[in-house]
């Protein structure tokens, strides 16, 4: 039993390394800005979905309010850069830490709730954060924060028209979240989460400190979501509550993980790779007609995947593998 | 009346029944006895359509395996399930009347008289919520609710479980009376002595297989059987 698990884990590491290598060279021959943008957004959401997966998937706490941590990360790093001239790579970490702190603060009362009560409470907390940001003039209020262009440099994480650096930042972000998830799958913490997810009472009897283990998941998940928010802010160059603290965004963070496979290592990536390009391309080429086709398509896709592949797209992989190798 | 042949069923990945065959004749009390985990509950659930099975279950010439659970109930099979499964926040009266939900016609509540004559205590507690009843009263209510569906075959899953000894006797007496009124009864019990005492025929189940069957009195008398299969 145990050796087969480690063999599987090693194989996953090898797959990831190969994938990473491919992704590193992939954008080089593609010069089209739109396609590169698509890659960046997809990777960013792959990382965000993986971050969500830590809490929502492995630990089983379906948060529909993750844009709160995204927004916190974005605001902290942006305000540090705009007002304090602190370079975004530093602001990113700071934003992640504040977001993690926020996640702990939210988790403390909210983890007492379960099931749908929990999910709705996360929406409410996110909505409160949104309303406060909208009314808090010190952080720009409704007008948002404009990030001035301070010259092309890695330190500022600003590039005039070049998309390649952002691509590697997003790739790095996604890779790190994947690595963390991979590590967690083998770590003690990961086991206790799965125990919590399956059966809280049983987990408790096994000596898992349920509350503490949920808090750890929230902090990790919040941290990486915050980092993602900071990257996003620097990439877009402008933040306002509507675009980075909305409920819609919270769903979009969770959706790839759900479609791809909750609590799986590859699910969030797979979900993002399918969902984000589909969403972007359909809204680019169908949305301009204004007749709602893109929304209908998007809605049907979500329903279809949820019903036809309830265990997520990642399960398709298992089917392939079983057929190819004759072993699960 | 009920004929089961070559029944296989799995429960949570474990094979709970393996090739079980069983026959219940009209107007009899048939007891199925066996130790914990022998597959007794799964057997009743299979008949009631609550678990998926392989094999054949024929009731009055009708193949039950084609029917959904609620149609099996309507076909005339009542199950008093393990754990009683009452509707805890509804009143005793509502629990009873709901038993007649699928029955049409002016006489749909007629079995109430029978239920009250079997269990007079229920009549005293009509307005109470089911969850406030004692264990024995809940069992009575569960039997009463099943009777309200006007079954021809009544299946009971461990009716004596978790009940004061004094009430156990009442319940077994009631089961006898039900049989005497012309109903057929399939009874699953761990309390061997009482079950075999009222039963006409008995099957002994062990790890999902029928290991023995015969007249209840004969099985009750065979001490070797009792030692070998029933751990007594």
């Amino acid at each position: 039993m145990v050796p087969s698990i480690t063999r599987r884990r090693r194989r996953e590491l090898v797959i990831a390394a190969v994938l990473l290598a491919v992704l590193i060279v992939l954008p080089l021959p593609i010069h089209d800005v739109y396609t590169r943008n698509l890659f960046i957004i997809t990777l960013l959401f792959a990382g965000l979905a993986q971050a969500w997966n830590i809490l929502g998937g492995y630990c089983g706490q379906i948060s529909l309010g993750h844009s709160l941590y995204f927004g916190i990360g974005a605001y902290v790093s942006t305000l540090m850069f705009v007002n304090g001239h602190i370079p975004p790579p530093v602001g990113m970490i700071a934003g992640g830490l504040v977001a993690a702190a926020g996640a702990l603060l939210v988790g403390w009362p909210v983890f007492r709730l379960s099931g749908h009560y929990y999910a709705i409470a996360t929406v409410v907390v996110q909505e409160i954060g949104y309303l406060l940001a909208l009314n808090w003039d010190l952080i720009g209020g409704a007008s948002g924060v404009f990030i001035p262009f301070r010259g092309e440099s890695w330190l500022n994480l600003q590039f005039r028209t070049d998309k390649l650096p952002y691509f590697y930042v997003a790739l790095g972000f996604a890779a790190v979240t994947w690595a963390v998830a991979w590590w967690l799958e083998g770590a003690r913490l990961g086991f206790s989460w799965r125990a919590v997810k399956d059966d809280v009472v049983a987990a408790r009897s096994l000596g898992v400190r349920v509350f503490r283990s949920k808090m750890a998941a929230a902090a990790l998940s919040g941290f990486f979501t915050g980092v993602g928010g900071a990257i996003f802010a620097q990439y877009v160059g402008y933040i306002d509550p509507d675009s980075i603290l909305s409920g819609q965004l919270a769903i979009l963070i969770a959706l790839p993980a759900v479609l791809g496979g909750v609590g799986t290592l590859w699910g969030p990536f797979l979900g993002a790779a399918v969902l984000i390009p589909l969403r972007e391309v359909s809204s680019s080429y169908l949305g301009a007609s204004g007749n709602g086709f893109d929304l209908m398509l998007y809605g049907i896709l979500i329903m279809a995947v949820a019903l036809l592949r309830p265990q997520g797209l990642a399960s398709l992989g298992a089917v392939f593998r079983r057929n190819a190798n004759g072993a699960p | 009346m009920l004929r089961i042949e070559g029944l296989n069923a799995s429960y949570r990945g474990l094979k709970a029944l393996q090739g079980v065959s069983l026959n219940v004749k009209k107007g009899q009390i048939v007891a199925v006895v066996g130790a914990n985990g022998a597959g007794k509950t799964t057997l009743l659930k299979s008949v009631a359509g609550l678990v998926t099975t392989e094999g054949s279950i024929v009731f009055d010439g009708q193949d039950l395996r084609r029917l959904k659970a609620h149609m099996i109930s309507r076909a005339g099979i009542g199950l008093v399930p393990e754990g009683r499964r009452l509707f805890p926040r509804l009143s005793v009266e509502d629990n009873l009347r709901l038993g007649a939900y699928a029955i049409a016609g002016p006489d749909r509540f007629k079995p109430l008289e029978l239920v009250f004559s079997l269990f007079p205590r229920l009549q005293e507690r009509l307005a109470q919520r089911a969850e406030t009843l004692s264990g024995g009263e809940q069992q009575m209510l569960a039997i009463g609710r099943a009777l309200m569906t006007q079954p021809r075959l009544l299946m009971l899953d461990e009716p004596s479980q978790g009940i004061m000894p004094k009430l156990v006797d009442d319940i077994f007496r009631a089961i006898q009376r039900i049989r005497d009124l012309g109903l057929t009864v399939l009874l699953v019990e761990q309390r061997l002595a009482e079950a075999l005492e009222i039963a006409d025929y008995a099957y002994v189940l062990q790890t999902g297989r029928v290991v023995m069957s015969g007249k209840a009195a004969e099985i009750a008398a065979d001490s070797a059987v009792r030692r070998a299969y029933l751990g007594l």
Partner: protein
Amino acid sequence: MTIETLLQVAVSGLLMGLIYALVAAGLSLIFGLMDVVNFAHGELMMVAMYAAFTLWQMSGLDPFILLPIVAALMFGLGVAIYRLLIARALSVRFNRGMVQIFVTFGLAIFIRGFMQFVYGGEFRSITGTWLANRTANIYGVYLPLPQVAASLVCLLAFAGLLAIGRTEFGRALEATREDREAVALIGIDRDRIFALGWGLGAATVGVAGVMLAGFYYISPNVGANFALIAYVTVALGGFGSMLGALAAGLLIGEVEAITAQLLEPSLKQVGMFAIYLAVLMFRPRGLFGKL
């Protein structure tokens, strides 16, 4: 603040609270029955508003008169949604909780796109109705008649829901929600009860939508304005409890009205959210929820 203002605030909160309560009632019903949170609930209300609008445009009849027709249509829609989507979502073997969340979420997006396709994005209003823009003045407290009518209909709808609860069908609903497996043993077809429950839930929110259409604008996104409040109302009242939905709706309406008076109106929803969180700290299953 004068006594008139105070009363006016209380009345406004009450009138809006009843609408919130009715919007929430259908959601609560469906959840209580089968543990499904319908994330397309606001969109069902929006569909009812458009249905009322279209029928009004075609017939020129007052939405009041159209109420039963729209309710019946919504009932059918609810049943159809259950049969086509939800029954399937309930039968999956993995991640059932997430599947039902995202199936209804996908449905919400689809309905929004579909309504934009049919009606365009334009804001619509039902105008020139019998009660439109009329108000009654009682000792300096103004009562907008369309809203008063809506509130009365809300109360009637609640009375209706409670009355249904007392019928045999209502008992069967309650029994199904308490033990969805055991009902099969007494010959109740769970699937049918669920479908009817969806029909009833959709009809209820349909009634709210029609009454709302009498004084609110209609657009493909209008459901979202009410949906979040409906979820909060249901969670505050306790999933599955009709009385909870009523009490929570009124509470939220009042808290909203009072917060808007005391604080910046743009923060009025913070008030209701804060109350919600505060209540959940002490009663994690809401005011009337089952523990």
